[in-house]
């Protein structure tokens, strides 16, 4: 079976792996796809076939190799990386940042990935408190033709938490996660969010804040201002575009950082971080 996704130039081929499609449907928000009329596509951009040890995926982004995953949720989870890469590449203009993005005050707060920062959990807890999550792992960015305004674009994926969940989750957070549990594997749990909690594919909002996350055991949640050069350094390290020149990446990210509030959030418990962010930027009492 080949599926044609609206917004992607090429098909995705499911060769004996059609059972992945219902899982895919559950984790996508705003995507439209349908079976291709004839299996006549010469070059599907992404192929998933059943192999002896699991679901084997090939794509232009796997450098001639293949990704093999036994569990269907894990296979879909990894497939989304390539779907997002295709979406960004086919746009001809989007940049990609390894970062979460949450709409707090009409604008997007972007959280570049840092080791063990818990950005996905934080994103879900913010959604539980009324914020709108745009992305929990990779955020597409639209430079808006260089006029200094950067828009974050929602990729339309449910957020995915790594298992096991943090053992210091407060009861409210744990209850929200458990009551919104979606597709699950040993490694990951998708969280079902509705349209007010999660932006659909293509929805956009201006990036107005970039926040580095620093998780420290038992630390009280605190937000401080940091230099733009520090933020720029981190965003360059989390830039994922492989087909964009270094100077274009540097100038685009420098332009985005120049127009943003640049902050660091230090915290011990994710709930404390979510509460501080909402009270500081989203007028939560």
């Amino acid at each position, binding site marked *: 079976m080949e599926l044609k996704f609206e917004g992607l130039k090429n098909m995705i081929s499911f060769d004996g792996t059609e059972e992945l499609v219902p899982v895919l449907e559950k984790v996508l928000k705003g995507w439209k796809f349908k079976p291709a009329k004839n299996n006549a596509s010469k070059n599907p951009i992404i192929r998933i076939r059943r192999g002896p040890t699991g679901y084997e995926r090939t794509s232009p982004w796997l450098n001639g190799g293949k990704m093999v995953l036994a569990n269907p949720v894990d296979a879909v989870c990894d497939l989304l990386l390539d779907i997002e890469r295709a979406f960004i590449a086919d746009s001809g203009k989007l940049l990609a940042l390894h970062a979460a993005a949450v709409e707090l005050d009409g604008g997007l707060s972007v959280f570049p990935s840092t080791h063990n920062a818990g950005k996905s959990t934080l994103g879900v807890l913010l959604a539980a408190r009324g914020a709108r999550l745009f992305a929990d792992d990779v955020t597409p960015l639209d430079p808006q033709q260089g006029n200094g305004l950067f828009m974050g674009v929602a990729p339309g994926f449910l957020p995915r938490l790594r298992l096991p969940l943090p053992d210091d989750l407060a009861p409210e957070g744990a209850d929200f996660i458990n009551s919104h549990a979606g597709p699950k594997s040993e490694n990951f749990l998708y969280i079902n969010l509705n349209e007010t909690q999660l932006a659909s594919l293509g929805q956009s909002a201006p990036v107005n804040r970039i926040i580095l996350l620093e998780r420290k055991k038992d630390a009280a949640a605190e937000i401080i201002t940091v*230099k*733009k050069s520090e933020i*720029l*350094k981190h965003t*360059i390290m989390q830039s994922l575009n492989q087909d964009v*020149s270094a*100077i274009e990446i*540097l100038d685009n990210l*420098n332009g985005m950082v120049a127009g943003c509030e640049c902050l660091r959030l230090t915290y011990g418990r994710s709930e404390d971080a979510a509460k501080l962010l909402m009270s500081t930027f989203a007028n939560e009492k």
Partner: protein
Amino acid sequence: MNDDVMQGIILRHPQAIFREVDEDVFLVHPDGVTIYNLNPTAAAIWRLMDQPNNEALSGMEMAEILSAAFPVISLERLQSDVKNVLGGLVNEGFAVKQ
């Protein structure tokens, strides 16, 4: 190499592009692919390299200028810093010996 770096003239590679943000400098390698970040000390040395060719400074001269600007830091320490930075810039392809 180290004596050359300090006694001779090291120039910015003509195809190295850079941007200044706060006290830092972000360098784009002549290969067009890699981005390097210079901390404030290395950035200061990079800025000192911005002289017309006939007025370019040697590493020793740069260390003396920095010593006047930062009298609390020993000249020997600054010479070591300049030597390391200039050597690194040459090794990584951002600078060339005159």
